[in-house]
């Protein structure tokens, strides 16, 4: 029991929570934005993989870290454009199209990586983001090292969560996005072009997914390897449901999730009789449990997964 308390009282755990949460925050916000406009984006897993690869590759070839994040965002947006063309313009099944984007984006990442980076025993690395101590706040006992000594993208993720919450619920643009997700016909009657809103939301959301991936290779780790995204994209999709499509709750959900994840990693070293695979299963099982609890209660955007065609019911 005291071992458990030791884990909970260590600043290492609480610092790790924000680090683990960051890609989930970016990814969940991206998926949330797409879904608020009425389009499910299952391309997320592949877009994160591509963002991780291309952001890393840019930095490996001499770009600075922020340029790396930007490249990942732009490429994420391009995959978003592809998903939008398939699901908005052509109105194809959002499930299958999203999976297609994921399969394409991840295999394309591996192809480009294998082509441009020679095979080596240990994967090549880059200089990743360094943690920045926020002046004043980081000197606070315990809380300081845990929450205010993070890498810059982590602060950016929290900022974007707040901005997205403001935009969605306090601006005309946000109203247009939410209306398109609830009832595109009504939105059109108000002079909003649902097609354009959906394109914009999917591209912007996918850009966030690209950044989510790049965080893995430019901050959490410093190299790229295939399958490194490890289902984080799917976890984000589950977190969107858990958050009931609200950015503030998405932030909380990601932190809660990261807390359990950071906790189980440390628990492994204490409970070494239990096979390590049991602990690794936990994040996925936790996501499924969260879905089962929340799915019925959640307020799903009413037009989610319904293609919109002008003048067609």
């Amino acid at each position: 029991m005291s071992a458990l308390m030791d884990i909970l009282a260590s600043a290492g755990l609480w610092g790790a929570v924000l680090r683990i949460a960051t890609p989930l925050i970016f990814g969940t916000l991206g998926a949330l934005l797409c879904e608020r406009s009425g389009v499910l984006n299952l391309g997320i897993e592949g877009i994160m993989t591509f963002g991780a690869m291309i952001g890393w590759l840019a930095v490996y070839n001499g770009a600075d870290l922020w340029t790396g994040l930007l490249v990942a965002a732009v490429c994420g947006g391009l995959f978003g454009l592809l998903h939008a063309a398939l699901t908005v313009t052509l109105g194809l099944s959002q499930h299958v199209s999203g999976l297609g984007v994921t399969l394409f984006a991840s295999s394309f990442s591996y192809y480009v990586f294998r082509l441009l980076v020679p095979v080596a025993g240990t994967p090549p690395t880059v200089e990743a983001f360094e943690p920045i101590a926020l002046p004043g706040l980081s000197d606070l006992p315990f809380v300081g090292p845990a929450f205010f000594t993070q890498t810059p993208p982590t602060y950016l993720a929290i900022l974007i969560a707040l901005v997205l919450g403001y935009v969605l619920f306090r601006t005309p643009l946000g109203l247009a996005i939410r209306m398109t997700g609830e009832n595109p016909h009504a939105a059109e009657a108000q002079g909003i072009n649902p097609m354009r809103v959906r394109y914009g939301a999917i591209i912007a959301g996918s850009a966030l997914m690209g950044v989510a991936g790049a965080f893995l290779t430019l901050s959490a780790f410093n190299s790229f390897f295939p399958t490194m995204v490890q289902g984080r994209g799917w976890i984000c999709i589950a977190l969107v449901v858990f958050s009931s499509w609200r950015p503030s709750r998405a932030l909380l959900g990601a932190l809660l999730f990261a807390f359990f994840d950071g906790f189980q990693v440390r628990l492994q070293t204490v409970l070494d009789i239990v096979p390590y695979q049991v602990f690794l299963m936990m994040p996925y099982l936790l996501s499924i449990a969260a879905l089962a609890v929340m799915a019925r209660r959640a307020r799903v955007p009413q037009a989610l997964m319904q293609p919109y065609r002008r003048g067609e019911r």
Partner: protein
Amino acid sequence: MRLERREHRPLALVLVTPLVAVAVALAIAGVLIAIAGAPVIAAYGELLKGAFGSRLATTETLTRAIPLILTGMAAAVAFRAQVWNIGGEGQFYLGAIAAAAMGSEVLGDLPGFVQIPVLMLTGATAGAVLLLIPLWLRLRFFVDEVVTTLLLNFVAILFVSMLIDTVLKDPLGFGWPQSEAIADQAMLPDLVSRSRLHVGLIIAMVLALLVWFVQRRTVFGMQSRAAGLSPSGARFAGIPLGRTLIFVAMISGGFAGLAGAIEVMGVQGYVTTELSPGFGYSGIVVAMLANLNPIGVVFAAIFIATMFVGADGMSRAMSIPAYIADVTVSLSLLSMLVALFFTQYRIRK
């Protein structure tokens, strides 16, 4: 210019669609091969040689197609009823480990004619059970099964990894995490001597025919199709929706689990976590390329197997990353989606 929905699709169009989609995918992949600095035509020549250039290559390609036919059918059967089973990969592994455990731990020395059907049934059952969980969550809690089946893939593979690391670990495996091998008489007989091609090919093809017959000619086939086309309409027509979906899920998960069992019984004899190079996910592409038709699944599976086996040869000969196969396969899924759209609509001036 506007789009108009076609009343019916001519058979020629239906048959040509996947061919066009594959041609487009190969053309785009050709650009990527050119960027890698290899002559495109020669590279595709090497691909064909790698897949069909010798007796060995051809049998390898067909061997690779066997699990793809089965996972393709798993996806096709489910998608037709709008059950989005993306969990083929996890069901494949669970089927494989269940068959391996039953063979090595329980059945032991029993003769082959008992073992083979029991192991296949065990694998299918394990796969079916794994898909029933997300379906139950959908029917009971309204949870989208796409996300849950995807998440369960990771859980299933970790579960298998745990088993072959602990209780099912082969003590003679030099410390490698792998399951004990099943008995020799439980292995599926070879179809062609001095090759790895086994009778699983015949089993998979017969099952494809059977599914085609069930979908076309039985009440259940009609009900599952109706459940997919319009759930509310199906309910209105008095079709027991929940029961139909449960049967569909059992068949779909069963096929994916059977794929795992047959891969163990036909090729390797034991389970590692490298048993499947993504057979479950490729099965989705197989099903879409076949436009969810069970007969089409056989051809689509052979195409995908050609790409994977051929790309290995091409990669060796031309130093192009073998991932080009995955890229081409995923591109063919995307172009098939677009092509299907244009068979459903026609452009009117």
